C-alpha cells in the first residue's frame, strides 16, 4: 500500500502546532461564514420540530399517521433510526480505542458528540409517542399509593432502561474524553470569561501523571463496558418487535441484524460529519482520505451483514412453512408499501456495493453520496419493518394501511435540524478533534519512527 496516500496526519505535525490549530477553531475570533449559514438554515429546520412537538402535544398522537393495527408509525421508526446512528460513535470511541486503531483519534470526538445528540433525539420520540408524556415517569419503579410496579417482563420497560443507561454512558464518556481538552482550552484562552468557562468545566485538570493514571483506568473501564452496550441497546430495542408474535417482527435474527444496521447508518453519519468538518475548518490534513477510506470500509462490513440478514429473513419466512410469514413477504414485495421495500433494496443492497471501490471511498463526493444513500436506506428499512409487519398480520378483518401525515414528515425533518444545530454549536464551543488523543497518536508515531530508524 502506498504509504504517502495512507497518511493519517501531516508528516511534520507537532503536538504544539496541532493543539494551537484545534483550539483556534474554538477560541479564534470568528467562525467561518459557512458555519453561520449552516446554523441559520438548521435553526429554521429545527423550528419545524418545535412546531411539530407543540402541535402533537396539544392535539394528541392522532396528529401522526397512526391507526390500529399500525400503532407505531414514525415515532418508533425514528427512534430506531436515531439510536442506531448513535452506536457508531460508541464503537469508534471505545472499541476502536481498545483495538488501538490510530485512525480513530481525529474523528472520535465528533463521533461521540454525534452519539450524544442522536440519543437525545431517539429518546424524545417515545416520549412524544406516549400521548401523555407527563406520565413518562410511570416507567420508573417508584413508591406509589396504588402499589403498582412497572411490568418487568415488558420490552417497553427494557427499552426505557436501555436508552436511559445508554444516554448516561454516552454523556459520561463524552465528558471524560473532553476533560483534558477543556484544560487545554483553559490554558490557551486569553479572555478572563473564556478562561473561567473552560476552567470551571475542566475541574482543575493538570495533566499530572496521577490524573492520567486514573483517567486511563476509568477510560478503560468505560471502553470495555461499551462493547456490550454497543451490541445490547439496539438489540434491546429490536426485542420490542421480536418478542411479539407478529409475523415480520418475530425473528430471532433481529438483535444482531439491528445492530449491524445501526452501525452501518452510524458510520455513514460519521463520514458525513467528517466531510463537513474538513470543509468547514480546513481539517483536510487531519481528517484525511485515509480516514474516509476506513469509514467506508466499516460501512461496507456492516452493510454486508445487513444484506445477509435480509436474505436470512426471507429464507426463514419461507422455511417456516407458515402462510402468515410468507404473506408478509408477498405483501412487502408487491403490497402498498412495496416502493419502500424496493427502495431499501436499491439503497442497502445495490448502491451500497459502491463501497467496494477504494476510489469511491476516498473521493469526497463519492463517500458523501454513499453515506446519504446509507441513511436513506436504513430509514426505509426501519420503515418497512415497523409499518409493513403490523399493517397486515393475521386476521384480514384487522388489516389496514396507514399514510404518514404532514406532521410525521415535519417532526422528522425538524429533528434532523435539531441534530445539526446541536452539532454545530458543539463544534464551535468544544474542540471538534480530540487534542489529547491526537497528541498521543503523534507521540506513538514519533516513537515508531525512532524505532525504525
Amino acid at each position, binding site marked *: 500500500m502506498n504509504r504517502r496516500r495512507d497518511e493519517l496526519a501531516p508528516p511534520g505535525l*507537532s*503536538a*504544539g502546532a496541532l*493543539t*494551537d490549530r484545534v483550539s483556534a477553531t474554538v477560541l479564534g475570533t470568528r467562525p467561518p461564514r459557512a458555519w453561520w449559514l449552516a446554523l441559520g438554515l438548521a435553526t429554521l429546520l429545527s423550528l419545524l420540530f418545535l412546531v411539530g412537538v407543540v402541535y402533537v402535544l396539544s392535539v394528541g398522537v392522532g396528529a401522526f399517521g397512526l391507526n390500529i393495527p399500525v400503532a407505531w408509525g414514525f415515532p418508533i421508526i425514528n427512534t430506531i433510526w436515531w439510536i442506531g446512528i448513535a452506536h457508531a460513535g460508541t464503537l469508534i470511541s471505545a472499541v476502536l480505542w481498545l483495538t488501538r486503531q490510530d485512525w480513530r483519534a481525529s474523528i472520535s470526538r465528533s463521533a461521540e458528540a454525534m452519539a450524544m445528540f442522536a440519543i437525545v433525539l431517539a429518546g424524545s420520540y417515545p416520549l412524544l409517542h406516549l400521548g401523555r408524556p407527563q406520565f413518562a415517569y410511570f416507567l420508573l*419503579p417508584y413508591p406509589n399509593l396504588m*402499589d*403498582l*410496579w412497572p*411490568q*418487568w*417482563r415488558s420490552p417497553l*420497560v*427494557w427499552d426505557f*432502561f*436501555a436508552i436511559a*443507561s445508554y444516554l*448516561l*454512558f454516552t454523556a*459520561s*464518556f463524552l*465528558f*471524560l474524553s473532553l476533560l*483534558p481538552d477543556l*484544560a*487545554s482550552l*483553559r*490554558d*490557551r484562552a486569553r479572555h478572563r470569561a473564556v478562561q473561567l468557562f473552560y*476552567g*470551571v468545566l475542566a*475541574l*482543575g*485538570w*493538570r*495533566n*499530572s*501523571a*496521577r*490524573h*492520567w*493514571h*486514573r*483517567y*486511563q*483506568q*476509568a477510560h*478503560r*473501564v*468505560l471502553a470495555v*463496558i461499551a462493547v*456490550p*452496550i454497543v451490541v*445490547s441497546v439496539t438489540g*434491546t430495542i429490536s*426485542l420490542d418487535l421480536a418478542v411479539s408474535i407478529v409475523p415480520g417482527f418475530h425473528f430471532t435474527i433481529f438483535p444482531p441484524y439491528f445492530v449491524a444496521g445501526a452501525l452501518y447508518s452510524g458510520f455513514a453519519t460519521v463520514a458525513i460529519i467528517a466531510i463537513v468538518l474538513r470543509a468547514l475548518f480546513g481539517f483536510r490534513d487531519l481528517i484525511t482520505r485515509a480516514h474516509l477510506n476506513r469509514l467506508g470500509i466499516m460501512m461496507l462490513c456492516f452493510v454486508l451483514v445487513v444484506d445477509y440478514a435480509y436474505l436470512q429473513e426471507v429464507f426463514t419466512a419461507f422455511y417456516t412453512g407458515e402462510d402468515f410469514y410468507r404473506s408478509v413477504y408477498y405483501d412487502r414485495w408487491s403490497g402498498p408499501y412495496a416502493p419502500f421495500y424496493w427502495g431499501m433494496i436499491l439503497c442497502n443492497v445495490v448502491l451500497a456495493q459502491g463501497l467496494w471501490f477504494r476510489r469511491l471511498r476516498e473521493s469526497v463526493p463519492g463517500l458523501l453520496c454513499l453515506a446519504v444513500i446509507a441513511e436513506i436506506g436504513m430509514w426505509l428499512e426501519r420503515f418497512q419493518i415497523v409499518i409493513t409487519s403490523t399493517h397486515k398480520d393475521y386476521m384480514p378483518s384487522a388489516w389496514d394501511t396507514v399514510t404518514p401525515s404532514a406532521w410525521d414528515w415535519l417532526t422528522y425533518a425538524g429533528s434532523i435540524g435539531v441534530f445539526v444545530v446541536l452539532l454545530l454549536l458543539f463544534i464551535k464551543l468544544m474542540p471538534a478533534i480530540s487534542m*489529547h488523543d491526537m*497528541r*498521543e497518536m503523534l*507521540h506513538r508515531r514519533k516513537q515508531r519512527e525512532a524505532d525504525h530508524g
Partner: protein
Amino acid sequence: MDERLHGLLARFPDADRLLAASRDLRRRGLTRLDAYSPHPVEGLDQALGLSERRVPVIALVCAVVAGAGALALQVYASLDYPFNVGGRPVLSWPAYSIVTFAMTMVGATLGAMLSMLWLNGFPRPYHPLFNVAEFDAASRDGYFLCLEASDPLFDAERLREHLLQNGAVSIREVPA
C-alpha cells in the same frame, strides 16, 4: 524561604527525558513528585510508583451492587404484586436480565467516572502550579516534573543539580 515554596518545576524537552528523570529521582528516594505531560506517557506511572487500582475496583463494586440491586428490585416487585400473564412463572428471571444488565452498566459507568474525579481531587479550582505561566504548556507540548517542597528529602540546591543532569531545559520555583 522554603516554607513559602510549593516545589521546583522542571521542564524537559521530550517524554523520554521526563521518564528517565522521574525514574532517577524516584530512585534517589524522593516520594512527593509528580510528572505532567500533554498525553499519557507509557511507563510514567510505574516510574513514579503509581500502582493503585482503586478506579476499576470501585467500578466493579458499583456495577455488582447496581446490578444486584436491580435484580432484587424486580424480584421484590414480582412478589409484592404477583402478576399472572398466561400462567408464566411469577419469577420469570430471563425477562429480568435486560434491566439488570442496563443497571450494571450504569453502576460501572458512574463508579468509574465518579471515582476518577473523586480520587483526583476534582473539582479543584486552585493549585499553586497554575501560578506558573510556563505550566500552560503542559496541555500543549511541555513535559514537566514537579518536586514538591513537602518531601522530607527536599533540598532545592541539590535537586536542581539532579534535574539539570537529567536534561531539564528550565527550572522554576513554584510559590506556595
